[in-house]
């Protein structure tokens, strides 16, 4: 059988291709800066209790202070340490970003995969459904869902996920439609593979790269949307240290203690920037159309 030959040569080839891709990635300055920013946020989130104090501890004697040696990002309107709140807020924002993206990626990709591989009528139904959700103004729908479900982290995640899955459905379907005509799919059909086997075993692995690129952007966008919801008061509620609601709570301190509202806003900015840079870099390196 040819199988022996296959197993002997294939792993090495895969290895070298992967190694080449990784080396190309690490030579892309966007990817490197993005990864550095993301790593910093992840480390801060992981070690928040060790590197900062209690984010809920109030001290009304020191409210709205500028940075000092004791509170290096100052204190908020209730005398809470801004650094402690920003550090603990990283946990919430990262969790929201990852959970929203994981949820919408799974739902959206499955719908796109099914739409692309199970024939015209199913495709039509699923894509019209996607079109309807794409027509919604994302923040308004998310706001309505979040307000109706009640404000909590889980409901914020759900609300943002409801508005972000359609882009995956479209992306995956378009990829699948293009891939379906390729020879390896024809071969699988000829060998008698079932539709679902073809979809999940043959097509899915081939659309993972565009999904990954989209996901990188979406983590940042989800964090931005969720923080926006909290800013207008329908997302994560005080006193939970969430970056968007921290900006809202401290906006009146912008003249006297500008750091208190700018620190959480800058945390949002750098986190989103990190994921955007990573997404840009991944696209440049991995997407054959983007390769120059």
């Amino acid at each position, binding site marked *: 059988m040819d199988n022996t030959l296959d197993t002997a040569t294939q792993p090495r080839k895969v290895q070298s291709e992967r190694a080449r891709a990784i080396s190309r990635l690490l030579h892309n300055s966007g990817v490197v800066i993005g990864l550095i920013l993301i790593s910093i946020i992840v480390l801060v989130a992981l070690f928040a209790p060790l590197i900062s104090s209690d984010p809920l501890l109030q001290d009304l004697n020191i409210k709205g202070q500028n940075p000092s040696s004791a509170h290096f990002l100052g204190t908020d309107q209730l005398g809470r340490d801004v650094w402690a709140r920003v550090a603990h807020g990283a946990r919430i924002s990262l969790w929201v970003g990852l959970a929203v993206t994981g949820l919408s990626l799974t739902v959206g990709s499955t719908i796109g995969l099914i739409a692309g591989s199970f024939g015209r009528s199913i495709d039509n139904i699923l894509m019209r459904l996607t079109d309807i959700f794409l*027509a919604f103004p994302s923040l308004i729908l998310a706001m309505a869902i979040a*307000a109706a479900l009640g404000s909590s982290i889980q409901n914020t995640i759900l609300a943002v996920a409801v508005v972000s899955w359609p882009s995956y459905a479209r992306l995956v379907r378009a990829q699948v439609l293009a891939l379906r005509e390729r020879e390896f799919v024809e071969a699988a059909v000829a060998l008698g593979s079932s539709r679902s086997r073809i979809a999940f075993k043959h097509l899915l692995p081939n659309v993972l790269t565009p999904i990954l690129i989209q996901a990188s952007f979406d983590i940042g966008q989800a964090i931005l949307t969720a923080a*926006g919801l909290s800013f207008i008061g329908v997302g994560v509620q005080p006193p939970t240290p969430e970056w968007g609601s921290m900006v809202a709570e401290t906006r009146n301190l912008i003249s006297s203690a500008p750091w208190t509202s700018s620190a959480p806003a800058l945390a949002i900015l750098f986190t989103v920037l990190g994921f955007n840079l990573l997404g840009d870099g991944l696209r440049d390196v991995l997407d054959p159309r983007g390769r120059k």
Partner: protein
Amino acid sequence: MWIYLLKRLGFVVFVVWGVTLATFFIAQVVPGDPAVVALGDNAKEEQILAWRELHGLNKPVIVQYGIYLKNLLSGDLGTSLRTGRSIVADLKDFFPGTLELSMVAVLFSVLFGIPAGIFAALFKNRWPDLLVRLLALIGGATPIYWLAILLLELLNNRLGWLPGPGRLDAYLINPPNITGMVGIDALLARDSEVFWDSVKHLILPAIVLGAFNAALLARMTRSALLEVLNQDYIRTAKAKGVRSSALILRHALRNAAIPILTVMGGLLGGLLSGAVLTETIFSWPGIGRYATQAATSLDFPAIMGVTLLAGLLTSLINLGVDLLYAVADPRISYG
């Protein structure tokens, strides 16, 4: 062409119907009770029942939906649970504010985004390019409400160059309501003082609302133009001695128009989401702020009205963009 247009308009109707179905479904499955929100936690059982009766919320869901659709076809979106007014009247009052703000914001993002993108592409990898790319990256990642807070603090509070939230200074009287857009109404009434004041009030919220889109447009214009500038026909045109301004405007930009148009369509659709945050901060009486207030008071008829309007606008914008493709690229036709 006409058949295509008819098909697409049919699709718009379908999407709007789907939006009603989806919002109605969401309104049913959520645990929040609008009666409790409207009457407060201490409301008595019979008060709540009477309130539900008044707003038709005690009927079966299918019947409620049927009534809603029937009223919708006669142009009635129902009554807001919060303001007690007809939602069509509410939307008519608040939509011009958003329209006015959005138009200025789009103007700002186009006037800054596209030239910045062209500029960056022409100086690829030199400092103007790096500067534009850096600004675009930051613009795409900044929470716009923080940008609003900063700009208000700097340009209004510290420097006093621009007015704060609102559409007009308090001592000025609104011009006679014709379009609902204060600036245009003032022009129609030939009231230059009110006109300039409304323009000044528009600058900050329009920058805030347009910043994200300006960043996106700059990036898209840059990459679309770079793609085109690599093509053979540009080299040919260059070799034939076409002036560089004509080269960019007539040969390159025209061919870069399709991806730019696509982005434009997407950002017009996203304006309403941006308007939610911008209008909330700038106390701007528009659809975005109306939607926020509706959402926080579980005013579902009003939320449905806003989403319906937004869905309709998004679908029409997408249709408009698709039709413009044919204008930008004669090879595309919808015959």
